[in-house]
């Protein structure tokens, strides 16, 4: 019970803040509720199938397969796969973290996983079409053209700045997730 309370303390705190807002300003509280309802629906729709697919990936795909396609020696194929998988995904960035965790656990290289997260955050195909319709092709395509080298640049910098020890620590931490 105590452990449960500790795990949910952040959530309970935000609930408290929400209650305070309701007490002070009803309209503001209702507006917050409508935003929360919207995000909650999105989360309930997109997150469960992602986790279920991850469960299957974890159980069925052998480590060797992942190492072969996205591991240290996977070269360009691994990079291309990371970009493709990240771009084909939908959903907010936080959806990428559990996927990345399973990738690392299964033996994908650190660099490919970072590239995957980068692609997920910026070059999502379904979102790109939407961006074009809202902001125009010039805006969307320009952003895409700068973001692709940006993903590699950030991935490379992360790898260099973190160093071998920290990368190994992260990989170890994934084993127990």
């Amino acid at each position, binding site marked *: 019970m105590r452990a449960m309370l500790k795990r*949910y303390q952040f*959530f309970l705190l*935000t*609930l408290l*803040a*929400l209650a305070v*807002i309701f007490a002070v300003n009803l309209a*503001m509280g209702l*507006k*917050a*509720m409508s*935003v*929360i309802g*919207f*995000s*909650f629906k999105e*989360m309930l*729709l*997109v*997150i*469960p*199938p992602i*986790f*279920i*697919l*991850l*469960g*299957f990936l*974890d*159980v069925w795909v052998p480590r060797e397969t992942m190492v072969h396609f996205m591991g240290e020696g996977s070269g360009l194929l691994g990079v291309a796969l990371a970009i493709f998988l990240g771009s084909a995904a*939908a959903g907010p*960035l*936080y959806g990428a*973290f*559990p996927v*990345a*965790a399973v990738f690392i656990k299964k033996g994908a290289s650190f660099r490919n996983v970072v590239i995957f997260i980068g692609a997920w*955050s*910026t070059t*999502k195909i*379904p*979102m790109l079409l*939407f*961006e074009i319709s*809202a*902001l125009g092709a*010039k*805006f969307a395509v*320009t*952003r895409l053209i*700068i973001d692709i080298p*940006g993903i590699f640049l*950030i991935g490379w*910098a*992360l790898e260099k*700045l*973190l160093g071998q020890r*920290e990368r190994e620590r*992260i990989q170890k931490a994934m084993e127990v*997730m």
Partner: protein
Amino acid sequence: MFTYALYIICLIVAAVSWRKDKVKTKKALIKAWKAFENILPQFLGILILVGILLAVLRPETISALLGRKSGWLGVGIGAILGAVTLIPGFVAFPLAAMLMRGGAGSMQMGAFISTLMMVGVVTMPVEIKYFGRRMTLLRNGLAFVFSFLVAWVIGVVVR
């Protein structure tokens, strides 16, 4: 659209898995549930936090701060707003378009959209849980700085 595809794929995979090995299928589902429950508390807290943030920040306020004339200060404000809010793309793009029609600059919106997608201050607790503090801070910091470059190029190209 994508969500439906995700569910269909999920069902197909589940059906194939069930036919091949019932024990493994159950194991996969249990793993999925455990992984989900593991981060559920943070998720719920974040959802509410974002709702509160968006209710407190009024669109008119955003417009005043992000106008074409706001320059690099506006870019900085846009970048920070994008970093601390968590709006789904299909809300953020029309919002940015609306703001641009209302006088916000393309450079400022470029920074906003870029950090919105790459930087997640409110989701940091979740990210730290997976990757640790150091990598999370580095990744978000690098993405934040990079967004200024994105903003500058968009400001030059999109008038």
